[in-house]
């Protein structure tokens, strides 16, 4: 799977410009971390990749085809977990995943559903109504629907929000395994999530790409520069904060 963005900009009807002239190449396999402060344009970027939005200028190509033409094909190859999502409370976990499997037109839906349930550790809650699930269990159901059918392209927007530390570690490891043979794009605020598993890091702020490279490269590029939040941060956090403060000064 290869996604290519050329000079992509996105301005909402209310005039808010969320992305400015983005140029990127995303290739599988790999786990790409997407970092940026609130309002940086991460979710807009992910929505563009998921086909939920169309850029106001520039082009996005998926495997050489314009995304606008490859919409249906991309949907079939995409697992997407938005930052802000809901579930049908009246359904059980299995029913909901079965519903999503039908939407995705999976060939062996039952198998895919149970694989996803096992992957997110929801086997015991599989036949429980979603209305009775905890916040973390709902988040896991959301992740499960993204994993349905082993899609070659996974977009995960803040997937570990609401999960306890143990679950976060589990999912970090899961995403790392999933990235072995597919493209996984992981957007998060939690730098710890990306440090250990991401092979590539993209930092976005104010709609522009500030950094695109390996975590080590970010650390090296920011070493010796002052940052705005001194304390007990890791090297990657320091480098990230330094990058943002440099951008803020500019």
């Amino acid at each position, binding site marked *: 799977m290869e996604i290519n963005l050329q000079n992509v900009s996105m301005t909402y009807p209310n005039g808010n410009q969320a992305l400015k002239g983005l140029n990127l190449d995303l290739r599988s396999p790999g786990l790409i971390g997407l970092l940026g402060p609130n309002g940086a344009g991460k979710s807009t970027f992910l929505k563009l990749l*998921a086909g*939920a939005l169309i850029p106001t200028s520039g082009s996005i190509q998926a495997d050489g085809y314009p995304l606008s033409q490859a919409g249906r094909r991309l*949907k079939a190859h995409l697992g*997407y977990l938005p930052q*802000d999502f809901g*579930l049908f409370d009246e359904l059980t976990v299995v*029913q909901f995943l079965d519903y999503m499997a039908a*939407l995705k*037109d999976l060939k062996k839906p039952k198998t895919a559903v149970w694989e996803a349930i096992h992957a997110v550790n929801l086997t015991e809650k599989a036949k429980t109504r979603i209305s009775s699930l905890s916040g973390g269990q709902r988040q896991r159901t959301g992740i499960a629907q993204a994993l349905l059918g082993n899609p070659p392209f996974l977009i995960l927007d803040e997937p570990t929000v609401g999960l306890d530390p143990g679950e976060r570690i589990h999912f970090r490891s899961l995403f790392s395994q999933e990235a072995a043979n597919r493209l996984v794009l992981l957007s998060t605020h939690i730098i710890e999530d990306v440090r250990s598993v991401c092979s590539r890091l993209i930092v976005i702020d104010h709609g522009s790409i500030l950094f695109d490279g390996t975590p080590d490269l970010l650390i090296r590029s920011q070493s010796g520069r002052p940052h705005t939040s001194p304390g007990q941060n890791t090297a990657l956090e320091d480098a990230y904060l330094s990058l943002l403060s440099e951008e803020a000064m500019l």
Partner: protein
Amino acid sequence: MKALRLFSLELGRLLQSRTTWLTALLTILSPAAGLAVCQPAAADTMLSAYLANPTLAGSAAGGILFGLLTVWEQDRACRSRVDTLIYTAVSPLDMALIRLAALAAAALLTMAAAALAWHPFIRKLSGSVFSETDYILSFVVFMGPALFLAILAASSAYHLAGRLDLSLVIFCAFAGLSLTVWKDNWQLCWLNPCVWALSDDFSNFRIFRSVAYMRLTWLTALSGVWILSWLCIRQWGRGLLASLACHSRQICRPIFAFFLLFCSCAAYIFQPMIDHSNPDLSASAFYELPVLEGVSCSGRTASVYPNTNAGTVSGTASYFFQNISGQTQIAAFGINPGYTVSSVKANGTDTPFTVSDYQEYNEAMLTATIPPDETAELVIEYSGFPKENRALASQQGSAEISSKYICLANADLAPRLMNVANTGLIPATIEITLPAHMTAIPFSTAQAEIVSRHDGGTATWRYQGTGAGGILYAGDYIRQDINAGGITVQLYYGRKHQAVMESAHAAESVRAVVDYCTEHYGPLSFSSGSTLKLIQSRVIGGGYAADGASLLDEADFTFANLNDSGKGAAPGEVMIHELVHQWWGLANMFPPTANTDPWSAEGLTVYTTYRIIKELYGTDYAIEHYVKQWQQEADCYYLNFYVRNPQYLEALPENKRLKISNRLAHVRQYCEMPLKILKAETLVGGETAMDEILHCLFTRELDWTFPYLTYQDFLDACQLTEEDLHDV
């Protein structure tokens, strides 16, 4: 395959929602409102009360409920933010289609459940006149489509508005229009169809067709609107117009939507049910046509072929003219506006003809050229689906043509000659080919006879009469000949009504009434020679009489009416009451005042019924079951709070005031007035004196400028004043 799987899953999800179950439950219960509070079908037939009203109430309530459910469900995906997951996998447009299909299926299941749940109750309430066909059609035509139309309307509103609150306002306004401004417009009342009556004993072909036509018109219109709104579904972060422009790139979509809208407009404009008669009911252009000079009509024939499956008529009418003017003349005929004239031949050759756009009293004017020959035979071939008068658009059903019942009046039967002198005297021979089980009954002294039977189960009937028009009834009738009052009364009633008529001793009642009333008040003015036809008709909201025939509305002989203790102590006595109306109550006998006027046809009819019962069963029985009951009711009336304090009645809301005042008026007409007549009887010197007075009143010479029998006429004839009868 994917669509089917998605549909079944979406339907399954919908059926797991409590809101759906609540909506379905309330919809299933909503026909109960038609039995108690919401009764748009005003006729007194059993099926009007116990089938039409429940299904019409279910239509309005169910439609609104499913509209609300649709908006709620459409907004739910957005409100719960599950749409962000769904639209990643499938386009919002595809999902909207699936959701519409699932809601429609839920509505269908609800309607089927309602039909099953109400079946035993409605069957029991309707009694022997219950019809499975009418039952199914009432749910399928009256109730079911309202749910689907409401889903389409609400879904369109949500697609366009994109907001729960605004969508609800739009949908409620649209439903409100149907329930208020459009409620009497048979084509516009999409939620609550104009159904004023369902026949118990005959067919309801016309009214079901009319409602089905209205539903199809709206289905086409709302489908067009829905497709347009569907194209407006916001996608890719775009607004309404940008989404519309983007989704309309597949040009066949908007074209199809506009095609549907165009079809619905065409269906609205070119509807086949109602004519465009001049709404001015005083218009008489067709009755003021100048009579042709030197032209007379020596006879006419017509061969009429009703198609009972399609509800259409085709026919050939011939007119025999003497034309001594030596010039071509233009004959004018009234013809049903729904008919098409395919050819007019004069003496075997085609002659020019036109049909006017102007219509009056359910007739268009056909004009055809009569050649200058001394004798001319004009042959007109016509066919079509008869239209009904637009003045009665909200009370359709009079031009019924079905395998159970046919009513063809005047220009519905054959073109009615209008501009020749003495049209009332033209000898006419009419032949009509009917299904073999039907009996043809001309509404006149004429007797129809079978002249030939055909393969395929039809028979041709022939009768002869006079005049340019005429009314023909046909149906599966039972005829009973009853000798009474020196004449033979031919009582015709529907076979389906046989049990009710027999249990009400119809024949004995007819005999008793005709004997008694003829002896005491005089023979009926419209009985001709030695026969009188009493024909039970499909519900028409009243009756009428003409030369040798009188119509009895089926609503007067329903099980409920025959058991109305206000009219008689037993079904047979109510039958007598209804038959007495042949003397007291037909045509212009009583002034057309408000229905709350205590002086009406009912006072004299109830009094006469009491007199007949007294003669049949003795004084004690009559006093016990009539006079004492009137007195009891009248006493209650005078003690009634609103009678003693009318200012409080005036202060009530209109609907409550009307309900109470109508109930009070009923007591005044059915109890107080008979008591007054009874008191008058005592004051004038007894029954014989009163009979003489009533005889004089019945046979009085009419002043045609005001032919009515007023209360003052009655008092004058009794030489009494209003005060004399004040305390009863």
